């Protein structure tokens, strides 16, 4: 029988060193007796105490390979050693010995020993988490330019040591002490020290606690009382060290009547200022043809002429100078345009910008818009797949396109793709035959070409290249026409 003493501070490393030593000497689990700090002896038949080799960790004797453990066990052990159960070290060592024969045990969630260790691990994790949450500092004055705070906390497990680094990361610019009956953590000038526990210090009440209590009382909604939900997440054992907890009984007691009061109260008359403010805030309503570009944009945002507005993010108005000589009409906003609220910013728009640049067309001097202002799509999983607008939708949206034409009065309109063509000329058939020509319509002269997304969809690079050249020629021709 061998007795191993483990210290209160630095337990994890000490257990690891001791376990390694025992394994090298092939000590079976039933012959190891683990003792933690000053805990009383639990094994009645224990031999006289033999101090573990703490100062010099056991090294592998010549000829023996050090034991190996599967991934995951160290994390488990480093957490479980902080549990309050006196059997934790023995259980860990026992499981470690079993792992030597069967390393796959570590991923067997049905194994009873592992299940027990995992439960302990969970308890420690939860305790550490609650410590991060429920420690309450009190202001204890300044020292050398740094503010000082102190807290008293009573953890269920030995979680001060593994949790202290969290507080150093969080409260780096102040000095603090977390005193507990188990271990006390002290952080001064950026250095963390751990020392033995202490009795509860006398900390003066903090001025902020009154404000915090006010907040706690007022953020509570008396109409939805769920005491059990509160208690399962914030067990009563923590309440005595939390300043806000003293308000809980009162809040619970009066919740019912407060909720009832709200329901029974008769509606009151609005205050006098309400009417005046509302009159100012409500937007002017109207359905006449908008006279300015911003007016058009504002009205377009509220458009509900066709069902497309229900699924789209927003209506996308045209963009460009109000006195542009050329207006370009595309099909409809795509995924990018729908989110950005601007026309021609997606892949097709970028292609257009590039080719237009090559053709000498200044995009800044052109008014760009779409025949349909809302994005039409089919949802597939998280993706939104483009759908061409139908005849009715194009017809409904034509009102907006006409309003834009009336505002901008362009010298020439460039129609890109079948949808724009249909909207502007009433006929979509024979796009490829009609491209490159100017048609006279009631909106003025319309130059017909393909939509840049057509180029993106072509199957081969050679085709794409040939079509891009044609498209560039179209744009160059348009540039010439508006310059003349």
């Amino acid at each position, binding site marked *: 029988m061998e007795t191993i003493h483990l210290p209160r501070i630095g337990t994890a490393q000490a257990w690891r060193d001791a376990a390694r030593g025992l394994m090298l000497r092939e000590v079976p689990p039933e012959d190891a007796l683990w003792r933690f700090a000053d805990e009383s002896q639990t094994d009645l038949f224990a031999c006289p105490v033999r101090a573990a080799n703490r100062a010099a960790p056991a090294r592998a004797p010549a000829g023996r390979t050090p034991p190996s453990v599967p991934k995951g066990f160290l994390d488990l052990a480093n957490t479980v050693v902080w549990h309050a159960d006196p059997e934790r070290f023995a259980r860990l060592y026992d499981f470690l010995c079993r792992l030597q024969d069967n390393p796959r045990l570590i991923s067997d969630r049905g194994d009873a020993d592992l299940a027990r260790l995992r439960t302990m691990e969970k308890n420690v994790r939860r305790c550490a988490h609650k410590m991060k949450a429920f420690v*309450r500092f009190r202001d204890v004055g300044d020292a050398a330019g740094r*503010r000082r705070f102190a807290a008293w906390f009573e953890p269920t497990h030995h979680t001060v040591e593994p949790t202290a680094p969290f507080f150093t990361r969080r409260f*780096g610019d102040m000095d603090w002490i977390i005193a507990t009956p188990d271990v006390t953590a002290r952080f001064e000038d950026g250095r963390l020290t751990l020392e033995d526990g202490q009795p509860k210090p006398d900390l003066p009440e903090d001025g902020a606690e009154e404000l915090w209590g*006010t907040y706690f009382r007022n953020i509570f909604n008396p109409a939805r009382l769920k005491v059990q939900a509160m208690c399962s997440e914030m067990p009563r054992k923590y309440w005595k060290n939390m300043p806000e907890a003293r308000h809980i009984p009162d809040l619970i007691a009066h919740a019912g009547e407060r909720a009832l009061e709200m329901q029974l109260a008769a*509606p009151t008359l609005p205050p006098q200022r309400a009417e005046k403010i509302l009159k100012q805030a409500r937007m002017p309503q109207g359905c006449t043809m908008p006279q300015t570009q911003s007016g058009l944009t504002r009205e377009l*945002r509220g458009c509900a002429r066709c069902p497309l507005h229900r699924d789209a993010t*927003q209506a996308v108005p045209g963009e460009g100078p109000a006195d542009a000589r050329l207006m370009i009409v595309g099909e409809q906003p795509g995924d990018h345009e729908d989110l950005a609220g601007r026309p021609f910013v997606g892949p097709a728009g970028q292609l257009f910008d590039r080719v237009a640049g090559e053709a000498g067309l200044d995009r800044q001097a052109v008014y760009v818009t779409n025949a349909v202002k809302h994005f039409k799509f089919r949802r597939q999983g998280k993706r939104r797949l483009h759908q061409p607008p139908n005849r009715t939708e194009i017809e409904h949206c034509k009102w907006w396109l006409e309003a834009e034409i009336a505002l901008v009065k362009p010298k020439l309109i460039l129609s890109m793709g079948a949808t724009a063509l249909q909207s502007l000329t009433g006929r979509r058939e024979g796009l490829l035959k009609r491209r490159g020509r100017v048609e006279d319509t009631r909106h003025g002269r319309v130059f017909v070409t393909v939509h840049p997304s057509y180029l993106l969809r072509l199957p081969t690079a050679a085709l794409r290249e040939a079509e891009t050249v044609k498209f560039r020629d179209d744009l160059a021709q348009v540039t010439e026409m508006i310059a003349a």
Partner: protein
Amino acid sequence: MMNIMVMSLNKKLAILSDAARYDASCASSGTARRDSRDGKGLGSTEGSGICHAYAPDGRCISLLKILMTNFCIYDCAYCVNRVSSNTPRARFSVEEVVHLTTEFYRRNYIEGLFLSSGIIRSPDKTMEDMVQIARTLRERENFRGYIHLKTIPDAAPDLIEQAGLFADRLSINVELPTDAAVQAYAPEKNPGTIRAAMGDVKARRVASKERSHTGKRPPKFAPAGQSTQMIVGADGSNDATILGQATRLYGDFGLKRVYYSAFSPIPDASRKLPLIKPPLAREHRLYQADWLLRFYGFDVDEITGVAPGGNLDLDLDPKLAWALAHRALFPVDVQRADREMLLRVPGFGTRTVGRILTTRRHRTLRYEDLQRMGAALKKARPFITVRGWTPGALTDSADLRARFAPPPEQLQLI
């Protein structure tokens, strides 16, 4: 002198936290990692958030959730702060919010700030003041904790841009599940504008993740994403509509969370919306359905398809309701079924399924193993076969629903 100041701050805090309590969001997780180990700042964020306290309504208190002001020029029927309400009004100064946030944070009361506001004067002015608070916290106080800003939909784009640089999360509430309901109960709000604002935030987030041609990363924009909230039970929408809207929001704008908030009585209620007991059970079922949509591979139609009248069964959780309606697919052989099917077994969570998959690679599972793996076997039993357990006729028995549903209650006769 000191005392007077504390008194008035206390009063303001009471009014402005009272006004903020109807916002359900409390998350402080999933943002970029930061800490103050360098000793020059305050605060840290590390992946998972922390709930620092719980109020007796069962909700966690993670962030200091306050309104900058509860003066508002809008008249939304469901809101306690609408212009026509007689609720007491107050307004925090920038310094007061900064002071409260840092002092509470230093005492480990909170994870950070969740700042919302009524609309004063104009959307731009309101947003500007909120951004000013976030900027002061970040730049002057070197605050590295969590900041969640409620964005005002109509605010100017450059204000949204700045808000996203200082805040971890931005949110805009869609408020009600349908556009018609928003128009009826929140006449000053425009659902299109709200969607446009969410689209804008999404686009900025995408842009902030793209490296420039030199490989330089642009500054992070709202690293914890955006969320929204829908009020449940104020208008007549059924659960199918609500979940349909939620699916749209998740898909279109990549939202991190959609919060459902049971419409709960407010002081000084509007005549337009009579007060009811908050539909808490319905809210709970909606959250369960939301989880099934996001983590369990369910489709919204599958969940609402088994719900009579488009409303979820309040007696059973939605997964159990689905399983009861699709008994032909059960029992499932735990040893051999694929992941997708295991996730559909009532009583199996994502973690249990993960554990089953890793363990069954090495050996045959037994009934007792499932217990240790965290399965809720009382629920799962009729739907699985595993060594040591077969449900026999239980799966198809006529009274299976009655085993799970709460016992019928005698109605009040008078």
